[in-house]
């Protein structure tokens, strides 16, 4: 079962930037590209675990701030010749809201970050 969650207004997501959703077992980085593409990836570089959300974003890739490895935003795979990949999550914009699909049930109706078992 999957559920959609709102992450708030698209205006709060900087172009060529990212924001982080902290879940109990994973951090998710939500990226917005220069041409308004939205992508959600696990916020952990496959190389040495750096926070991808802090990386520089250009085109369809983000460069990890720790050692510069590049990850493709659409597939979550590291850009050749590096190898490895991170989880991706479906995201979309509905009525100006950024929505993310997470494979988990909300803990309560007021649940904000209280989602579990991702």
């Amino acid at each position, binding site marked *: 079962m*999957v*559920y*959609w*969650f*709102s*992450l*708030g207004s698209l*205006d*709060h997501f*900087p*172009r*060529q*930037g990212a*924001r*982080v*959703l*902290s*879940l109990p077992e994973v951090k998710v980085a*939500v990226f917005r*590209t*220069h*041409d308004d593409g939205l992508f959600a990836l696990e916020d952990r570089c496959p190389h*040495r*675990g*750096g*926070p991808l959300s*802090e*990386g*520089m*974003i*250009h*085109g369809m890739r983000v*460069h990890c*701030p*720790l*050692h*510069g490895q590049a990850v493709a935003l659409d597939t979550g795979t590291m850009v*050749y*010749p590096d190898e490895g990949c991170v989880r991706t999550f479906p995201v979309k914009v*509905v009525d100006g*809201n950024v*929505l*993310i*699909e*997470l494979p988990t049930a*909300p803990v309560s*109706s007021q*649940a*904000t*970050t209280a*989602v579990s078992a991702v």
Partner: protein
Amino acid sequence: MAKKEKLVLIGNGPANIKALEHLLALAPDRYDIRIFGAEQHAPYDRVQLSAVLAAEKTKEAIRLQEPAWFDQHKITMHLGTRIADVDRVRRLVFDENQRSYAYDRLLLGCGSNPIMLDLPGKDLGGVLPFRTLTDIERMLASPVAGRKAVVIGGGLLGLEAAHGLEIQGFDVTLVHLCETLMEMQLDPVAGAMLRGAMESRKIKVLTQASTTEVLHDGQGRVAGIRLKDGRQVPADLVVMSVGIRPNIELAQKIGLACKRGILVDDYMGTSDPHIDALGECAEHRGKTFGLVAPLFEMGKVWAGAITQHPDAKPFEGTTTATRLKVSGIDLFSMGRFNGGPECEELVLRDSSLGIYKKLVLKKNTIVGGILYGDVFDAAWYRQLMLEKRDIGPIRDALLFGPSFAQEGADTVNPMAAMPAEMEVCGCNGVCKGSIEKTILEKGLTSLDEVRAHTKASASCGSCTPQVSQILEWVLGEDAATKAPAVETLCGCTSLSQDAIRQRLTELEPMGMSEAMAALGWNTLDGCKKCRPALNYFLLCAFPDAYRDDIRSRFVNERVHANIQKDGTFSVVPRIFGGMTNPDQLRAIADVADKFSIPTVKITGGQRIDLLGVAKQDLPAVWADLNAAGMVSGHAYGKAVRTVKTCVGSEWCRFGVQDSTGMGVALEHQTWGSWTPHKVKLAVSGCPRNCAEATIKDIGVVAVDSGWEIYVGGNGGMKVRVADFLVKAATPEAVMETCCAFLQLYREEARYLERTAPWIERVGMPYVTERIVSDAAGRAALFQRFRETLDQTDPWSKQGVTAEAPGEFRPVEATPYPMNV
């Protein structure tokens, strides 16, 4: 799917692991692979043992492959497991616990055993060979203060052992049977030079010395040695390094044909068609091998043969050449260095420079030689020897090297002389051989590709010239034609950095994306290389009109803190000139307490670093520091970092000027300006130079009559002593000169070019001309510098959060009702 064939390797030394690398490159999935190593250590490069003993490398640094590599190739590794027997009929190997493992193909790389002289007392504690990491661990096991070591054997390994033990603090005596050290590789002249070099390192050398007994201390340990002439040499450690003997015990036991080594054919096959052998245990056409080049060649031959690769070549036994791996002693020997019938010698000897070159010729071809003190051209001579080139036409200049002996001399690539195993990239541990191999295998043609595939030059970049030269050397003439005439900023543009800056001076102020369009960028939003550079160029060109593009800044410059390996940040408040006070210290301590900051450290630049701050705490940490009157120290930025000072005339009994006052004033005057790369300053109060000003981008050293100003120093990756720029009589003159220099650097250096390489590129006379000779120009530079300063504390700027809503806050997820 067909079941994989089982390949078993006995021995995990360098020859076997290299052979495996070759095999996996040719046939990555063909075999199910299992390796047995008698040693407990993961496979390491035995050739580098002397570097470990000499404390130049760690044990980890000489690993042949990381554990992950073995995992990746699904190789099963049995460490500390000796193979006791092989059943050649049923094709099983047995370990000492009688566990059996099947093979379809077996590779013996059993190496060799060190020869231990059969002397009375040879089994005493403290008598060791020099062959394994365990041997080194034993040598270094107990405290060494005042300890004495004797190394028996003045061959290559013995010399390296003596050198290493001396570095480790032993009082070392080297005992050698012959008159000449390394007599297998050197003639008496070079041997004597080498002896002198060893003796100057406080290693005692006894030649023509035959050891007859190892002396007993009465408690089971060695006390020294006795020589044939009756002399005794006291010792707590005796290292025997008198040669090796191929390890053929197992091969003999299972009935393979052996003489001195296991007999192999040109493709490493033994007398059993399912068993191959290579490395030091193998004997090929009556010869065994102990040097690394032919051993690695065997691996290549073997891999080609068992995969039936079309390029498989038979083993020919590379002509042996030797290099001594003792730092500071350059020594190379090859071929028939001692000459023989019909041979002539060319000799060059310069005792005061410590250089000796000898080439042995036979009918105008090189057949051997020795280089001592200057081995730069070793590879070239070796190549001439291997190709049996007729050196007649260049004979008169041959000894002076390719630069003199060949036409178009300056095109000779110095990388050719570098041995394959020499490390080129220290950051990522990449050697010349692997760069060469990757270039050939992957068909690479550019520096960027080499970086991407090998990681060489991808970190600090200090090896970039060498990597480029290797690329040229491998690709030959092609490289010159393929390389672009100018180095472009990145793949997004065909313009060089200099051209971009020139164009910007002709244009109206504009933003980042307009600039990309105006300059013909071929991408819409650039890349991580060009965006920060272009952002800086625009800031520098249009200081008033251009708005900093924080999305084109590296995270550190975006959040004004320094990202750490765990994703937390470090915060360094500015402490002008390194002068602080109890209030500042109290405020820093309070911040550290309040935010549970785990680490507080004094930096090399005399500042205080708060490490381990969570990103969401950064604004609050800054706010508290701001409230105490402190501003950001730019420890994270391409900007003026710190001005380091000594205490100067106010307190120091040697100080001739107020260096702290000058340092504080300089930092107040220069902070708050972006630069092409980080800039560090220092002020010393007297020529004793306690602030280490002569390895800074700008160093000011007080003298009795004023201040000496130095520029272009660097204490980092590549140490460079600063060049003297000018002497200034007054503090005002110091200020103007330093700021004018900074502005010249800001306007003309390339992005990410420190002052040191910039000065080396443009030359010191140019800098002197602009800053010292041209008074009006200097004043104008100073003026422009002051105009571009933005001394608003970045921490206090609201812009940080206004431009990036929620930069410091995580987002929250609220359930959203939707039919999925």
